[in-house]
């Protein structure tokens, strides 16, 4: 059973204790105050319209650990701007006290220690409690889901997203947009959208590839508080490039800025008093879109998994970043009058699973969805001595572990693991269950390939991915992180153009420089190519962990980062 623990909030006391206690163990030092559900939910209801935003939950129905990134580098005009601020700089920018709940929720540096005080985050039953509490204040609050909902867990994989569809219907979702949803394949997506979902699946930028005609509803108008609220959906723009296009062959995506301007004009002409963009563009793309397409009042951003405690204002557009994995819910109260948004009040609510009481109905639904898979989910495969996490521009310990598994199980010189941003964390000393492995790997094109690549091609791959991350124009960024590399070190100069960023590629097992003309045996997973052969990555990782018993991931020193 879930116990309600008392919560330690350091508040102002933290700075006084800093000198005496040193870094770490804030949990022990912080003993002044208890944190309650009311504290987390406190909000002075205002205006006439409330929006609730959840995004990128990646099928996490149960509370998880989730460590935020240490490296989240911004380039060009956005260098040093949120969300490209981490750790102590982030706390300073937003006035967050060391050891406080928002330190735990939004920064990485003291994660393991603070996790002991604050506990796991997320959980559909806790989210339901928060949604219900907001709707007790404002019964017609709009619940908007930014997508990446139907993928990321064993149960979502086994049920082809059905568990998530059922949960988000039960939450009372009003509209959603999409990204990984399409990796279930177009037939399954259409089955859900047409027969099961019961709320709009919006995507103004999704077109029929043959005829270049709109393929999904672009927007939905809602009457709330006497005002017309237009919610426009924007799916992930680089769907057929970043994910396997063969799974949805007749669809074309793209940013389609002109189309967005047309949609804003269309909903305004149709009487919208407020325009909300439910987006899966990624934060920097949305920031540029907000500057180039006037008339959007609120952009509910997604995809890049950023969480910000305050809106970022671009002109009159409020950009909201609500995190990922169910860790946060954003609440916005809007005062919409006379055809415009007069005021926006916002709160990023951290879903602390030990503070927020589970909603019993949702808890029962989640248990029912998981019940058929419990034996499979709970089997302990090994343990970890290290904190396992994924987020970071260049590497994370989860992918270090996956690369180690690929190198050894697939007998490769070099391993590649894609720069996904989804995947829960695991604390040092934890068991690693099969569920944990799937939380970092569950998807529909998991086959672990083994193939020869020349040094020249490996360089092209790294340059290509680096430009998707560090191109100074956000419209050329795909929103993932750098491909993770095992067995090879390299140097990256972020500020160089594509083709000149990556150098000093070195094969770790021999210490020799990578030769452009030589071939190397490379193992990887999540190829977007059809008919990729190999065992699913979770089997590779499971076999490796079983052999290791206890995994230990040393600090990764293989990537030298310059610039940025």
């Amino acid at each position: 059973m879930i116990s309600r623990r008392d919560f330690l909030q350091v508040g102002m006391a933290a700075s006084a204790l800093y000198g005496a206690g040193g870094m770490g163990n804030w949990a022990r030092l912080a003993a002044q105050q208890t944190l309650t559900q009311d504290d987390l939910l406190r909000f002075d209801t205002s205006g006439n319209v409330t929006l609730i935003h959840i995004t990128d939950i990646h099928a996490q129905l149960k509370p998880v650990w989730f460590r935020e990134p240490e490296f989240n580098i911004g380039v060009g005009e956005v260098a040093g701007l949120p969300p490209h601020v981490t750790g102590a700089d982030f706390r300073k920018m937003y006035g967050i006290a060391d050891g406080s709940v928002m330190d735990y929720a939004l920064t990485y540096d003291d994660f393991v220690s603070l996790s002991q005080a604050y506990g796991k985050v997320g959980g559909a039953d806790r989210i339901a409690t928060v949604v219900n509490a907001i709707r007790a204040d404002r019964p017609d609050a709009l619940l908007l889901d930014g997508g990446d909902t139907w993928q990321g867990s064993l149960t979502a994989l086994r049920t082809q997203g059905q568990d998530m569809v059922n949960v988000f219907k039960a939450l009372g979702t009003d509209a959603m947009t999409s990204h990984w949803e399409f990796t279930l394949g177009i037939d399954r997506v259409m089955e859900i959208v047409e027969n099961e979902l019961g709320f709009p699946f919006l995507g103004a930028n999704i077109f029929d590839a043959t005829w270049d005609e709109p393929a999904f509803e672009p927007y939905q108008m809602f009457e709330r508080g006497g005002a017309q609220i237009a919610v426009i959906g924007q799916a992930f723009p680089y769907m057929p490039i970043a994910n396997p296009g063969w799974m949805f062959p007749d669809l074309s995506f793209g940013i389609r800025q002109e189309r967005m301007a047309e949609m804003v004009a269309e909903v305004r002409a149709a009487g919208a008093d407020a325009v909300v963009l439910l987006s899966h563009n990624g934060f920097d793309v949305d920031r540029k879109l907000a500057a180039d397409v006037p008339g959007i009042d609120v952009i509910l951003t997604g995809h890049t998994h950023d969480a910000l405690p305050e809106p970022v204002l671009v002109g009159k557009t409020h950009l909201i970043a609500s995190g990922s994995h169910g860790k946060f819910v954003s609440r916005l109260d809007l005062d919409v009058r006379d055809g415009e948004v007069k005021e926006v009040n916002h709160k990023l609510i951290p879903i602390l699973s030990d503070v927020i009481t589970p909603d019993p109905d949702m808890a029962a639904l989640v248990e029912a969805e998981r019940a058929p898979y419990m034996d499979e989910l709970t089997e302990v495969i090994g343990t970890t001595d290290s904190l396992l996490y994924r987020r970071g521009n260049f590497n994370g310990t989860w992918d270090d572990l996956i690369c180690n598994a690929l190198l050894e199980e697939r007998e490769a010189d070099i391993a590649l693991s894609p720069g996904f941003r989804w995947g829960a964390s695991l604390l040092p000393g934890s068991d690693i269950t099969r569920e944990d492995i799937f939380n970092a790997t569950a998807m529909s094109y998991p086959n672990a390939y083994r193939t020869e690549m020349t040094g020249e091609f490996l360089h092209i791959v790294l340059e290509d991915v680096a430009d998707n991350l560090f191109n100074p124009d956000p419209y050329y960024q795909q929103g993932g992180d750098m491909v993770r590399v095992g067995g090879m070190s390299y140097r990256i100069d972020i500020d160089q153009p594509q083709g000149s960023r990556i150098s000093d590629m070195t094969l770790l097992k021999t210490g020799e420089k990578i030769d452009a003309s030589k071939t190397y045996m490379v193992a990887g997973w999540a190829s977007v190519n059809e008919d990729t052969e190999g065992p699913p990555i979770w089997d590779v990782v499971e076999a490796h962990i079983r052999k290791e018993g206890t995994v230990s991931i040393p600090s990764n020193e293989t990537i030298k980062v310059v610039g940025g």
Partner: protein
Amino acid sequence: MTLSRRETLVLGLGAAVAVMMPLGAHAAVEDAIAAFTGGADVSEGGVTLTAPEIAENGNTVPISVSAPGAVSIMILAAGNPNPDVGTFNFGPLMPRQEASTRVRLAGTQDLIAVAKMSDGSFVQTSREVKVTIGGCGG
């Protein structure tokens, strides 16, 4: 696994673009523009070129051009072995001076549209379209 079509495409193209862009292609683009304009001055703006920022399939990239008041619009793909894509001519009865087509792109490159206006002046615009391996989106 065999890293198939996509890999081959990118490999071949990376090399081709690197070799050709500085020399052959650029001169060919200048020649094509000079032939279209007869050497007249070309100003920026007045013509819109719509294309994806990143091509979903470099073999068939949908693009459209629009230049109100134009009598013809020429499109060039600056990084292709042969940069000529085509020229659209608009008769006096055409209600709108716009056109759409699909182009094959040999790699990341600029698309260029040059429009001849009814008064004999010329305008141009360009847009970079990236051709990428992809496969690592968040």
